[in-house]
């Protein structure tokens, strides 16, 4: 039972005594409202994005969640499994006792696929990393890896939702929505939760990946558009000058104030008046975010903006840093388009696929870590690398001309850096084939609990009453992976 229910979906209007008059005044983190508590509901309705105190103290104030769609092959990136090369072309030497999907896959003819890439130890932690990620490899001592994560479904659609929203069925809030709901937004002139998509298209499930689900609309992910005006509707209507708009906003405010006469207990109407002022300022502030023209040449180079393959994700990473600087709470970066050559879903030709995908992201991700660190921002920014599932050490039906790998919902590999993450640490471990975890099993909900914990939130206390249940990101509750927290 969760005593600290933060809010509920029960309607009702709130009187002035609940209204924190300082709470919707816009700029900065002036309004340090209450911590999440049972009377949050009123605040949420007045200013849903007011800064709220965390449940416990953590360094991270921001989160950059990078999602690589399609299922990144863990044994070609961050898990060194030399035995696979010995078995290359043959069935797995020892079929583990296993039930469910993997059993199905193993009961078909299959051929083990050794990694075509060389692995090498890096850093003081001596972590093995494949030669596809030479840039990221330099940061291993800042990174904590999590191996053998179990997700609930091996299809792209449900598993993508599971990783991004905690639920394989659509309709639940994404992590960014929960974090925004829990902590509010330090910058009231910007949305709290911003999504930077792969410029080539959307991931599986489209906007459901950054949905606010049953949480209020204020917690939705706002799409940063790839070109032109960064946020939808930021541009004044055609032919309307800023002066003219100000005149209209003044007339509007006048009318709305008049309308409020005699209804001064209606905080929602009050909030609406402020919202227009915020919108007005957002028009001025937000376009600057995507203006990377004044970034130094060395910075552009650091993120790989000057090089074709890395330019796309490099820009996404650079924008993420700019969002952190401007106080945006949560950024979701998506790389990979749901089906086709841009997805990490390398059923055929895992070699060619990994060469292409890794080249696009290795330098930008490394650039982001370097840049955050040199600006002192890595301390306060949790950076997460995620995909929706791992891949199998074999290919069903034999090697074929270009061996690939199947889906594996038992062995997702993720990593985190920044904030209170213990660099060079790890949680979980997979067997010699990287088929599934050995030792303590890690479920996706444990990773979610860890992310919340690192943001200063407790998954069991961050709840929202909806359809008869106190909902939370981790559903039945996750266990923080203490071993990767310093």
């Amino acid at each position, binding site marked *: 039972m969760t005593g600290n229910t933060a809010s509920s979906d029960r309607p009702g209007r709130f009187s002035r005594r609940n209204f924190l008059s300082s709470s919707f005044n816009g700029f900065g983190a002036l309004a340090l409202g209450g911590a999440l508590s049972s009377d949050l509901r009123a605040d949420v*309705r007045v200013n849903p994005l007011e800064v709220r105190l965390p449940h416990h103290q953590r360094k991270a104030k921001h989160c950059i969640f990078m999602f690589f769609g399609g299922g990144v092959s863990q044994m070609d990136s961050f898990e060194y499994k030399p035995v696979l090369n010995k078995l290359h072309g043959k069935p797995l030497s020892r079929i583990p006792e296993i039930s469910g999907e993997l059993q199905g896959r193993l009961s078909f003819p299959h051929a083990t696929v050794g990694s075509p890439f060389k692995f090498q130890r890096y850093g003081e932690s001596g972590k093995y990393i494949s030669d596809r990620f030479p840039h990221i490899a330099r940061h291993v001592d800042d990174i904590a890896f999590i191996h053998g994560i179990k997700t609930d479904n091996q299809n792209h659609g449900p598993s993508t939702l599971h990783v991004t929203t905690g639920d394989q069925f659509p309709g639940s809030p994404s992590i960014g929505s929960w974090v925004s709901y829990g902590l509010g937004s330090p910058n009231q002139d910007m949305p709290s939760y911003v999504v930077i998509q792969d410029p080539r298209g959307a991931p599986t499930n489209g906007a459901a990946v950054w949905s606010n689900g049953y949480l209020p609309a204020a917690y939705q992910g706002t799409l940063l558009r790839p070109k*032109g005006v960064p946020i939808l509707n930021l541009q004044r209507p055609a032919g309307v000058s800023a002066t003219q708009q100000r005149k*209209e906003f003044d007339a509007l405010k006048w009318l709305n104030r008049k309308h409020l006469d005699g209804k001064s207990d209606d905080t929602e109407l009050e909030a609406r008046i402020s919202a227009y002022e915020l919108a007005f300022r957002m028009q001025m502030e937000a376009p600057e975010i995507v203006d990377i023209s004044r970034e130094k040449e060395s910075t552009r180079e650091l993120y790989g903006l000057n090089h074709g393959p890395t330019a796309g994700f490099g820009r996404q990473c650079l924008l993420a840093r700019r969002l952190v600087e401007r106080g945006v709470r949560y950024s979701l970066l998506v790389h990979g388009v749901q089906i086709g050559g841009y997805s990490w879903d390398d059923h055929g030709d895992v070699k060619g696929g990994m060469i292409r995908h890794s080249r696009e992201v290795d330098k930008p991700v490394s650039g982001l870590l370097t840049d955050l660190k040199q600006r002192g921002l890595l301390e306060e920014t949790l950076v997460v690398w995620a995909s929706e599932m791992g891949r199998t050490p074999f290919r069903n039906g034999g090697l074929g001309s270009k061996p690939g790998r199947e889906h594996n919902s038992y062995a997702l590999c993720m990593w985190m850096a920044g904030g209170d993450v213990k660099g060079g640490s790890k949680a979980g471990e997979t067997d010699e084939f990287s088929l599934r975890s050995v030792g303590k099993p890690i479920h996706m909900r444990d990773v979610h609990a860890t992310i919340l914990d690192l943001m200063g939130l407790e998954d069991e206390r961050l709840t929202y009453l909806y359809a008869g249940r106190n909902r939370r990101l981790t559903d039945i509750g996750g266990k923080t992976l203490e071993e990767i927290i310093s």
Partner: protein
Amino acid sequence: MRSLPVLVLALGFIHSSGLCEEPKREWPFTQVQPGQLPEVKNSGWAGNEIDRFILARLESKGLAPAEEASRRALVRRLYFDLIGLPPEPAAVEAFIVDKDPKAYGKLVDRLLADKRYGERWARFWLDLARYADTAGYEGDPDLPHAWRYRDYVIDAFNSDKPYNLFIREQLAGDEFSDVMGAGDLPGVKPEHVVALTFLRLAPFTEPRGDETRHELLSEMTSTVSSVFLGLTVGCAKCHDHKYDGIPTRDFYRMKAFFSTVQIPRPEPGDGFQIGGPLPAGFYRPGEKKWAENLRSTLDSDLKNSKKLLGEFLQSMKPRLGDVGSGAAVQAGGGPLGNNYAFEKRAVSDGKPHLTVLSSDGGRWSFFTDGKNTGVPGTLSGSNSGHWFGDIPGPNFISLGKHTQGSGNPGGNPYRGAFGEILVYDHPLAEGERAALQEYYGRKYGGKAAGPAEPPRAGLRYWLDASDLDANPESPNPAAGTPVSAWKDRITGLELVQADGKLQPKLAMLGGRAPAVSFDDDFMRGPAKGASFLKDQAGSIVSIYGSDLSAEGYGFEVGGGGCYLTTAVNPSASGARSIENLLNDFSNGLFTAEERYRYRYLQTRDKFVKQHLKRLKPVAMSLRHSYGPPYEPGVQATHIMIRGEYDNPGEVVRPGFLSCITGDDKPAKIRLDPFKRWPTRSRRMTLANWIASSKNPLTARVMVNRLWHWHFGRGIVATPSDFGKLSGGVVNPELLDWLADRFVKARWSVKSVHRLICNSSTYRQATVNRDARAAEVDPENKLLWRFNRRRLEAEAVRDSVLAVSGRLNPEQFGLPIFPPLPGSIEEAVKWDKSKWDTQGGNEGRKRSIYIYQQRTLNMPFLQSFDSTVCDTSRDQRRTSVTPLQSLAMYNGDFVSREADFFAQRVRELAGDDPARRVEQAFLLAFARPPKPQETARMVELLSSSEGGAGKDSLVALCRVLFNTSEFIYID
């Protein structure tokens, strides 16, 4: 925890039920009893029985109800509440001066009889039914026939279909007729087939055998329970319900009613996520005729679309000034799809050019005449990085006309000359490109210095017009000679053309070096043994000139319908292509209407086909299995431990929830006398139990929903959850009285509306003069005033259109696709052609008709808390965010409608500013302005510029749309 009446529930009495007397039940599991009307002091206030219940509670707290709202407020309230649209000014004035004491009641009746009533109230039901037009998940495929269920629901509300029948149709529409004697199963009425769509509306991913079936039936179980019974049975899928008396066993007993459900297989060509439809002829009056007419309109649309698109683009051309050109690469066919990448540089000018197209296996880069032409262009398509290595079975190489992977010339002609084509096995580095450029400069540009040969490292293929037979020893023929064979210098592969009519000729490029000149000509040769075919990256170098007025193709490698080809397109240059500019919302060259028109015409092929499919007389429905020997029989339902599909426990038989019945005996399923169809009647058994006046929850839950939608808060505040976490019931006697009346009025939903709307409670103002009321009951649970409410997203959009005078009143029919703002469609695309763009009248029907795409909620509606339903939703939220303000003020939709609103005001009020203000207020707020308001708004008019040649009136109209008064109902 909350302290309101606690529901002591089932677990207790289940265990004690066998022991002695009838167990003690707690509300809401008691039988509905109308009870005594409470005594009240101020009986004059009480208009009907509802008021007695409300007033008694208020008086017990020493509170008095608010005064009656003004007639003006009431008429506006009734319009929005019952039909979801603002009243026309004339209707308001007529009501205000109507001296008939029954005028109010008559207005209620009139609005309930209005056909627009169903369009508003069906929307609430669609939220509950998790209605959407797509399946969700990967690819989010279209459910082409879901819309018929939406129309069924609108009809049901309009015709005041008895609620118990409404339930039975949606749960067991296929089990209405008895099976007697011999013969096949009776046919099912089309309306009933459509109604059953209710059970199939959950999001659906690729099937995975038992697991999918388990999830599908579990979802049905949870949704049916929460929608009709107000119980969150879904919690019991994995464990006994923590708060309410619903053991896991009951979840599976309930699920067993659905165990014989059969979903038709997908039709040929359809994705597995869609499933198949069942026949359901058009049954609504005029529907058949409508479908026929629409079918023929669509057919002719399709025929004319190319022509119209051509004419449209032609008419847009003058906007562009000079037409430029660009080089391109295109990959297409089969698994490659269709992808283009364009550069943005003029090349179709008759002069020689050197273009290096490099693919790194992911993206294409263009370098023309030594210059990088910027970020790889994306005129259309996704700029995929297909290289020859991606072609499944390359077997030919061709030059000239496009063959689309067939090897046979058919496409656009090429007019121009090729000096050389070189293919390398890697993206060319800067140094290599420089060397090539120098080679080119010397050979074709007459420069003195430069290498005599192009870089040879990684060169896999080289057609050189200076050496047609690939033999440096033999001299090249003279210019003007027809070219019937051209041999590649690396592999010796030869392109040939035996047909004299298609033979190119030798010419000079740049006046200096030989080139093969094509004028609608073509050459082809085998690709066998060409080593570059296996590469995953590389470069294609073309030395060429062109003088094309339309797209022309160059070097193609293909086979089996797949290909990769280079092209030159005069209208492709980034800055100068109409198509590109029309798709780029950041320039001001076109009006929104023009852009929408373009999208509309451009995508006719795709959408007409889909619309025609939607017009088939079928429904996304389901039925029961026929049973052996045709289909599976009754499958045993197991309790699935922890809800896991592969963890079966005890077998259970279908049974009703024990927290309602008090026992867990199996339900009696009435089979046909000969037991020929053992799979039949399960769902009807369940439906009959739910739709019974004896079921303590069904009527209470529905009446509470209606109350919730009228007052913004239910008597139980969580309409789909009557359990312990509901926060309890405020006035159970009232709810019971209403439930009883509802059943007695033969489950007439409109009878409940009528009771509620005619009550004094409903007619209260939103302000109560007694300040103590807010102290005693801050959340207004006791209803000491009417709740001011924001319109739901759909009503906001509909009202904007109603006030601008542009709402298309047409009812029912296919989903509509109002234009999406800016490039949002591109940004969230799965299949960029999923969203038809209807900038015209058809896209301006009411919002309930908008296509519900699970992976894309229309941003405007989303900012007002609408949701494309994945799960059943029992209420809407009202968020206030800056993004909402931006959508309302800056967004394409409202600012465009503001123009039409202004035009309407101008027509009605003429030029006088004060009269304009008055007219605008009447239309937007159903009231005239106060003098002070007139003065302030006239000031706005006089100080404003409309901008872009518009009247300043549009500024006023924009402001009114953005006011709180416009979207809040008092």
